[in-house]
């Protein structure tokens, strides 16, 4: 198993899931492997009754996870909306792992995702040889989830074309999937549900039709509430990534990460953290995921070209690159921000480095 680059959640956290299952004696919705309470605990972390440490999978507002789990418990489909880096896919995978013990019923949404990927397709050799039959039918992950009573995941739902998206409507409202070619239908069994994720800021997405939207309960995953929290996430993920890439650089000081996170947050929100001054927001997304990549980038630079200690210059390169997407407008926004905020704050090393790179 060690050759696998990334294991499914239900494999990687098997010990935790088993421990929770053993101690979980509360009521479970039909076909659920765990009770809603245990699922929440699995996501948020804690200690199981038998003393097994449950690592937190999601750092943030407990109430969001409660709403998400309750939604699934009432048989409603769940839509997780948010910027990149707000852990949508991460939460969806862990919810599926905890509820169905299987996070692999996955449809990855792209502009090219066809209806067959959501409904079913055919084994054409068999279809030609023997004519239409259930044996010649190739079920999609959604169809398999329906028959097995598991959670199906649709990633990046808004990337899928609108007419293809709408093929989910019958599945969600009637809980059946008609197969007109055979004059049959597949009815979902207890435990089937859908978790979809979507990015609400990317350009070039296909908005959900209101008919489809109404069939979901929507939970908006926020960008981390406090700079402290966000810095913690960035540090945790950047350090883990650095280890995966075998970077010899020391994990960055929290101080440096906090500065990156603060700059990202302020540019994103359009005002300084103390709420005293407005700043111009650039057109870039500036998600937590990008903050993570700025920090790992700085680690790589420091490791390969420096002495392993991260300096302002290493951070500034990635920072400027992440902020300036539109060369004229964003550049001006960044320069104004550097002059009015970064300089005022006395971060002179970062100020000079960033100004150098953006000139």
């Amino acid at each position: 198993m060690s050759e696998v680059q990334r294991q499914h959640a239900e494999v990687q956290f098997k010990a935790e899931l088993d421990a929770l299952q053993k101690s979980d004696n509360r009521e479970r919705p039909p076909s659920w492997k765990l009770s809603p309470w245990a699922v929440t605990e699995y996501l948020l972390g804690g200690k199981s009754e038998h003393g097994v440490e449950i690592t937190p999978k999601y750092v943030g507002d407990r109430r969001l996870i409660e709403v998400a789990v309750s939604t699934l418990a009432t048989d409603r489909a769940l839509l997780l909306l948010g910027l990149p880096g707000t852990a949508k896919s991460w939460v969806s995978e862990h919810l599926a792992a905890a509820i169905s013990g299987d996070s692999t019923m996955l449809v990855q949404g792209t502009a090219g995702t066809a209806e067959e990927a959501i409904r079913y397709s055919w084994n054409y050799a068999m279809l030609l040889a023997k004519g239409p039959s259930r044996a010649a039918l190739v079920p999609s992950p959604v169809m398999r989830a329906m028959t097995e009573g598991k959670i199906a995941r649709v990633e990046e739902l808004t990337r899928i074309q609108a007419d293809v998206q709408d093929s989910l409507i019958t599945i969600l409202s009637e809980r059946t999937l008609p197969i007109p070619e055979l004059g049959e239908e597949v009815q979902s069994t207890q435990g089937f549900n859908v978790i979809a994720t979507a990015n609400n800021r990317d350009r070039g997405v296909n908005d959900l039709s209101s008919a489809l939207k109404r069939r979901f309960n929507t939970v908006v995953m926020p960008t981390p509430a406090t700079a402290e929290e966000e810095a913690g996430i960035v540090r945790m993920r950047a350090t883990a990534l650095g280890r995966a890439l075998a970077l010899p650089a020391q994990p960055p000081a929290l101080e440096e990460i906090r500065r990156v996170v603060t700059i990202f947050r302020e540019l994103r929100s359009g005002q300084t953290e103390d709420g005293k001054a407005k700043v111009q927001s650039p057109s870039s997304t500036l998600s937590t995921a990008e903050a993570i990549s700025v920090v790992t980038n700085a680690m790589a630079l420091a490791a390969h070209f420096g002495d392993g200690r991260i300096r302002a210059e290493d951070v500034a390169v990635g920072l400027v690159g992440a902020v300036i997407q539109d060369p004229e407008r964003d550049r001006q926004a960044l320069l104004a921000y550097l002059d009015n905020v970064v300089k005022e704050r006395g971060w002179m090393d970062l100020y000079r480095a960033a100004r150098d790179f953006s000139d």
Partner: protein
Amino acid sequence: MTVHVFGIRHHGPGSARSMLASLRKLQPDAVLIEGPPDADHLIGMAADAGLKPPVAILIFDVEHPRKAVYYPFAAFSPEWQALRYAAEAGVPARFIDLPMALRLGQEDEKDDGETEKAESEGGAIPAAARDGLPGDPVRWLAEAAGDPDPERWWERMVEQRGSSEGVFEGIAEAMGALREAWKPPGDWEARREAHMRQAIRVAVREGRQNVAVVCGAWHAPALQKMPSASTDAAILRGLKAVKVEATWIPWTHGRLALESGYGAGVESPGWYNHLWTHAEDPLPVWMTRVVRLMRDQDLDASPAQAIEAMRLAETLSAMRGRASPTLEDVTEAVQASICFGSDIPVQLIRERLIIGDELGELPPGAPAVPLQRDLEHQQRSLRLKAEPLERVVDLDLRNPGRLAVSHLLHRLLLLNIPWGVLQRGSGAKGTFHEIWKLQWRPEFALAVIEAGVWGNTVVEAATARLAEAAEAVIERLRERAALTTDLAQMMGALAPLASTLRYGSVRKTDADLLTSVIAGLVNRVADGLVAGTRDVDDDTARDIAGLILDVNRALAVIGNEGWLEQWRAALESLGVRANRHGLVVGRACRLLLDASRLAVAECSRRLGLALSRGADPTQAGAWVEGFLEGSGLVLLTNDELWQVLDGWLASIRAEDFMVLLPLLRRTFATFPAGERRQIGERAARGAVRTAADDGEDIDLERAAMVEPVLRALLGDIDG
């Protein structure tokens, strides 16, 4: 003889329900309520069906009407329900708190300014003044129970409780324990409790057999254990009273809300009112109201979603171990199921339903607030009736009476009372006429009350409001300045702002604020000057060149060296850009030359570069225009520049000259007549000067012709 003490929470519907149930069972022969005895004469009006909550009792110092206190009541306030119960059951009700006359009287001795401020903020008394203790006792209980949110904890433990059995005993016990751990009551709290005990003694002395006391939960233990009457009398001795007046006024749910600054306020008056009126099964009606509100706003919301929201709310409350959904569960469910996760509609629901916009009503002929009286007085003296029908009046401002009307209407506008709306464009009769559309709407009564926090007369309130408005305007300006990206807009704003700063039409504190706004603008103009002048067409270039002049002048007037330096540095980097519009670059070079930031030699090099043969003649012309516009004096005093320009003009090809002539003429036309004449004279003798400067090109033939005359004049030297 028995005394029952009901420790309630102000504006708690659960408290009200439990209390009402207990009162009905108890059948007391007197109801004593924690409230101001100064308003005892108003209690009778509670029986009047015309008095519809939310209403408030307003008590103010007759001599200093700014010293005022509001006691709000909602339909779900236990105090209000106690008043109504007494009225319906026909038993006497009485307020027993320390009279406001005494409290305002004592505050007289303290620092005057401070108390006035505290009382006028949001028109509500601070929590500490009302409950007589620092902080919220419920918070301490909630924290002990492990819930960081006292409102939520109380709602779950008390307000949403099904049965009222033993609630008051439990609360009193908990508060008793808290009070023991707490430091002894402060002076005011002790006096208030002493007064309440004295009032209970009075009731008992009158022979009441069954007395119900309704008071804040915190005070309940103090009213159950009675010390000797003489101790209380000693505490109350020597208090000075002032003359106060009390009146009912209509109130709103919005002003009951905690966020309005009302200390004893609740977070969700609208929700509490809903719980009070739909006690049996609040959820379906609430969800229906939410869905209808969304539809009123043209937002997509179906009954199916309302059902899903209900299911989710119930599941959430089960998951969180609650018997029934709290407002928090309900709102989260609404957000996920009806609002598609967005918090913008939730804000709307918060405003309209959770807080609510209900307005109380007074029976006709009820007394009113001081500002209202002043307004009525002015309406009478100006003979301007408040009428619900719209009408248009034409005010001739030369008539002092009409002028006074205009003043009044303008002042009311400042106070957010748009009784009159000034009409534009219809005043063809000259500047001394104002045309107003007048219409009095009933909700202005509330606006008058709200404006009452600014002062007790229209003049006083408008003056106070004006000062604050000026600050808000500057604050807004700063936000706009931070967000705009348009260079021309920023530059255009700089000049008037600079003159405001220079001539100081604002107060000192505002000047500081303004300085920071200007500093930000200078910063960003300087930063954006080079980028903002890229790829501009002729018209824009002309605008910007004009603005550059304005900004330069404005900054010179202010005389802040730092800003000038920043600005000139920006001009310098603009001055060397070859790919910017000639007009702008020429202007920058000229200003730098004037400021001695550019040596004449360097300037003429640039002029030469701009006018060099390879350059586009129209751009070269624009450069000259930018450089020279306004004054040609520079040409007269700087020979080198003159030479370059002169050489360029002489070298232009005929067809280019035709194109450039109007442009050059326009430029030179802007010079003062004297300068033009001198330039002309200089040009006329240009060739002579050239010959004299340059010894190589002497015309020997012409020289020979002059020689005999010179000889004659000077005398034959050689002989």
